């Protein structure tokens, strides 16, 4: 599904700032991988480089989705190809209704894939059902995108978008940050409901607790732009107990 090989990225405006220093990972269909790492280790940068945000220069390496070169595509093409990023900081867009935004996005992707656009009626039916599962009320759907939403509402809104767009490769960037226990449960249930044999997840998190709900197949530890250790779910527990310091010391003796 997602193949990242020796990915190097630096800041476009300052090539001295090298952020990713050779990241490699391979996610197979249906797998859930977690990336953990201290603040500033490059987790969000990895998600941005994969989804095509401006401001980063890839100097080496590759990233492909089902064999297609992601780095050659515009962000909207990556989305239409099935890549989805749940943002660490969802963006507020005053003046654009949440529903209008979602319908525009769903239909733009369908159009890009040569599929028929969804009628207003059909769209409404689908979104109502999915919103209900995430306890997103009609008012939140009508309001401008993310404007005046609480932290938890924003994260649930990200998962709603993911559910509507049905991507095959989902990247979740610290979707757990700022969530209380109940909201965490809602969000995790939303994610787990989407798990299937054809869909993969890359779950970025700073803490282990999210991984109690969304149980990963593989856990990677990212530090200073490199994956310093890869293991099973038990690696997350080790981080929880001992912090990152030991692992980092091990990697840079």
């Amino acid at each position, binding site marked *: 599904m997602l193949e990242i090989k020796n990915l190097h990225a630096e800041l476009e405006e300052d090539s001295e700032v090298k952020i990713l220093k050779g990241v490699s990972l391979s996610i197979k269909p249906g797998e859930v991988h977690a990336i953990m790492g201290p603040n500033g280790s490059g987790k969000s940068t990895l998600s941005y480089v994969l989804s095509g*945000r401006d401001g980063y220069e890839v100097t080496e390496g590759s990233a492909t989705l089902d064999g297609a070169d992601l780095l050659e595509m515009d962000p909207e093409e990556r989305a239409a190809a099935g890549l989805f990023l749940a943002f660490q900081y969802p963006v507020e867009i005053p003046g654009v209704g949440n529903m209008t935004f979602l319908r525009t*996005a769903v239909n*733009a992707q369908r159009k890009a894939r040569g599929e028929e656009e969804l009628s207003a009626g059909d769209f409404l039916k689908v979104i109502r059902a999915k919103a209900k599962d995430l306890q997103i009320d009609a008012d939140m759907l009508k309001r401008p995108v993310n404007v005046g939403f609480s932290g938890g509402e924003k994260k649930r809104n990200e998962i709603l978008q993911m559910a509507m767009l049905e991507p095959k490769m989902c990247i979740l960037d610290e979707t757990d940050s700022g969530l209380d226990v109940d909201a965490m449960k809602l969000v995790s249930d939303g994610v787990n409901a989407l798990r299937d044999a054809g869909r993969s997840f890359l779950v970025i998190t700073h803490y282990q607790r999210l991984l109690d709900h969304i149980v990963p197949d593989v856990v990677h530890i990212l530090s200073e732009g490199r994956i310093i250790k890869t293991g099973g779910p038990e690696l997350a527990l080790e981080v929880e107990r001992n912090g990152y310091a030991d692992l980092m010391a091990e990697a840079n003796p």
Partner: protein
Amino acid sequence: MMPRAKLKAQKRDAAEVLLKSRAVPAGGAWITKARQAALSRVSEMGLPNKRDEYWRYTDPRRLTDSEGQAARLHDSQGELPVFDRFDRLKVVFVDGVFDPAQSDPLALEGVEIVPLAEAAQTDLHWARDLYGTLEARAQSPVERALASLNTAYATEGMLIRVTGKPTKPISLIYQRSSEQADAMVHHVVRVEAGAVATILENGPMAARFNQVMEVEIAEGATFHHIRAQGRDHERAGAAHLFVRVGVDAQLKSFTLTANGALIRNEAVIWLDGADGSAHIAGATVGDGAFHHDDTVFINHAAPRCESRQVFKKVLRSGAVGVFQGKILVDQIAQLTDGYQISQSLLLNEDAQFLAKPELEIYADDVKCSHGSTSGEIDPHQLFYLRARGIPEDQAKLLLVLSFLAEALDEIADTAYAEDLRERLEAWLRRRG
């Protein structure tokens, strides 16, 4: 800096030249008197000059030259005109001249409507008392000689008196047929106590136009004004809106401007009666050789009134937007609530927005705020939309429309707002 006296002399000389070249139109006694009074105002003030503080950001020459410049006619490519889908009383002007053949019969329950050309020969007391009166009042604190010029020379326009709640809006439609026409149109509107009126205006009017609309809103009355100024690129014009808002009365005015070489929209609003309300808004989109100027003056002259100004401009590739907005709160106007926002979205680097917001407050218990911003499309918002699969052009269009939405939302009847929003979207989509 030129000395004041010298500037004044120059402005008066320019006025003399212009006045000599034009004959005062014939008419009955009342209108001749109003025209003569307006002429002496013009002689006294002189013509606007780019050295006037008031014309600092907009060179008025194209509006004051004795001859207007030609402007090509816009090809609408079969698109239906704005407001076409609504049931309304149609009053059509072609190059600024009333065209009864294309218009509906001037009959609507609760409304008296008389062409200025006709009324000039008779004596309509309510029109006589208004024609040129608010324009004259608007000459202080700053001079607006173009409006006086209009009072003196206009032979076209409608005198409209609303006494009830007409079932449909009055729709003033300004078509063009000539590349040369230089139009002067002067409307007078009186909304009587408790009445509710909607006036729609749309169309490019003329290669050059000078328009005045004087509106008196009596106690407890409501006036909705929705204007779409056409799309012809090369025309130039000035539109003046003078409104007196009475006790407990309400004004809502919205203007959409797309294109035009030079468009100056002036509004002067007096909140003369307690508990009145005035909302004035504008949405502007301009590209290339486009200069658009909103100049607004709101005078709170009575207690407990509310005023609101919302102006949004989207500018690209050399387009210039100007906003001059002043709120003057008299000493008597306690508990005033005044709000003003002017914002521009600059789609590329060589577009320009010049704003001059002003507050002058003599009452001590008031709430007034104003703000002005100028910015580009937010890259975070753009990326967010694109990351969801929305192509760049479409995402930008969505953001431009969302920027303008706040101004369109000022229109009370959402059906009109939606009509204008759809047009805007189609225009912007076509331009790319």
